[in-house]
């Protein structure tokens, strides 16, 4: 831990405020940069409604494109990172990640089915394209199966869930591969682009959907912060501390599946955030979920916003898939922390 355990409660408000400020700066940067640069004055004048339309469409770009996109990055980043944090806590394994229980594989299979077999036109449901709906359905089906497989009369076994998650990930993966084999070139490109993830499809209704589900889920995670701490000791230990372990597990899995499922449905699979961000936060403030969950959410959001900004800048006006950028930022950061991890007690 970089912050000593003793001074953490005292410094916490400062740390959390700092992460919010960082997120705000990231959002403003995200609004400013892109194919068409927008100056800070233009953003301020747009915010204060003193915007004069001088014909450069800056407010249209802000309202229609950059703002929904940046806010979507905020919510998706917060959802992925905090879901990663609670999944690692629930599985008592620092290498766990929502994709471990099959969310991403199920979503990929669902999206591939939609792209190859349904050949979607422009039809949509609640602002979501057919591909997104299929991806969400795919992730839900896989998680439900994993959960059912791991649950018997004696409760839900986390170890079985992990194994069932791996098995169903492979199963969904082979289905996806089969569909790729059958697909023609256009479909192949669509599948692979979808899988790399992107926030360019942001719009108001999608943003609203992800925000509502994401907000509820993160609130549920935070509500179970002490239960998750106790679960790190082991399940029966948590039970002896008065925690209704089966209910906590069910609620957390449900929220992870819904929040990550809907994020993947609108933004594709964005690698690395769910795994790496909680790790980095643990190195900074330790494993206590009281601090881990909020800080994962804010810094996960900041990381994805910045990654998205970069993805628009590197090859402008072409956009890189944001998943590439998160991995490119995250991996070196993670490696440098790994090299020093013994110093922080993990």
């Amino acid at each position, binding site marked *: 831990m970089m912050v000593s355990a003793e001074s953490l409660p005292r410094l916490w408000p400062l740390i959390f405020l700092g992460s919010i400020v960082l997120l705000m700066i990231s959002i403003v940067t995200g609004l400013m940069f892109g194919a068409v640069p927008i100056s800070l004055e233009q953003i301020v004048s747009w915010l204060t409604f003193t915007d004069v339309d001088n014909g450069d469409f800056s407010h249209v770009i802000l309202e229609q494109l950059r703002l929904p996109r940046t806010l979507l990055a905020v919510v998706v980043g917060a959802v992925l990172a905090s879901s990663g944090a609670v999944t690692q806590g629930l599985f008592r394994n620092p290498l766990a990640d929502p994709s471990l229980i099959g969310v991403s594989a199920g979503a990929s299979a669902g999206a591939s089915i939609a792209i190859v077999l349904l050949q979607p036109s422009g039809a949509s449901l609640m602002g979501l394209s057919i591909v997104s709906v299929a991806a969400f359905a795919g992730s839900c089906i896989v998680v439900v199966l994993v959960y059912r497989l791991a649950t018997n009369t004696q409760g839900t076994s986390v170890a079985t869930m992990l194994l069932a998650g791996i098995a169903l990930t492979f199963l969904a993966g082979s289905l996806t591969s089969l569909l790729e084999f059958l697909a023609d070139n256009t479909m192949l490109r669509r599948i692979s682009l979808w899988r790399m993830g992107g926030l360019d499809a942001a719009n108001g209704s999608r943003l609203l959907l992800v925000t509502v589900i994401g907000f509820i889920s993160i609130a549920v995670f935070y509500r179970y912060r002490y239960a998750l701490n106790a679960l790190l000791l082991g399940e029966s230990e948590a*039970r002896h501390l008065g925690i209704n372990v089966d209910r906590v597990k069910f609620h957390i899995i449900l929220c992870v599946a819904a929040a990550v499922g809907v994020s993947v449905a609108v933004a594709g699979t964005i690698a690395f955030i769910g795994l790496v961000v909680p790790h980095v936060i643990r190195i900074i403030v330790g494993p206590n979920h009281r601090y881990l969950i909020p800080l994962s959410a804010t810094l996960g959001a900041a990381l994805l916003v910045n990654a998205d900004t970069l993805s628009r800048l590197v090859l402008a006006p072409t956009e890189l898939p944001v998943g590439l950028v998160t991995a490119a930022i995250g991996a070196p950061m993670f490696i440098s922390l790994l090299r020093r991890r013994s110093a922080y*007690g993990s």
Partner: protein
Amino acid sequence: MEASAMTNTILDVRELSVSIDQRQLLIDVSFSLKAGEVTAIVGTNGAGKSTLLRAIAGDKPFTPTKIVDEKCLSGIYFCEKSISRWSQQELAKHIAVLPQISQLNFPFTLADVVGLGRIPHSTGAQLDGEIVEAAMQATDVVHLKDRFYTQVSGGEQQRCQLARVMAQIWRSEDATPRLLLLDEPTAALDLSHQQQLMCAVQNFSKQGVAVLMVVHDINLASTYADNIIALQQGRILCNGPVAEVLNQPLLDNLFGGDVHLFFHPKTGKPLVLS
């Protein structure tokens, strides 16, 4: 409630049977525990010691076999009320359990781990901090409180876990009566810490806590426990105060030949050697 207050009985186990997959692990086990007393469960490997502890702790596969009993007499009663009718949260304020092994792979500090014991209570950070400090003092880990759990030795982890369960039921103001279940608390400890720890447990019980512990070392049981319950193949072989129960016939019965009873030259307590 009145009867229990008079006799001071906290836990009443009546004709308890436990079986898993048709294998009988405990058969007709009955005994009771009083506040302020330490009771040791002894027996060979597989005699059902841990099963008994885990059945009382309410761990899932070890729940009692349902017996059709019109008077509903068999089962585990805590404060005269069947343990299955207590809510989990309420029970956690009264009963703390130290498991045999604890895996914790996350770098909590030792003080954080002990602090987890205060989860069932809402007594505020200030008071919880004092209790954590006092419990760590009792098990001699207070000097390690800022070290990471993942970086201290097995014995230190064990003492930290004991401090955690003691912190869980530290104050009689938070809940009475209190029961501490320990599964081999001294397994990973050196001799001096074994003694220190058992003394801490003994002192803790004197504050009105009933302690039920599984121990392998029968000498520790005879030195620090008030009562001994000897289990053999899931049945109680004998049950009573150490001085009455611990004798050569019991040892012969429990461990076969070659285990002999002596008396400690200094304390006069029973001493078992093989």
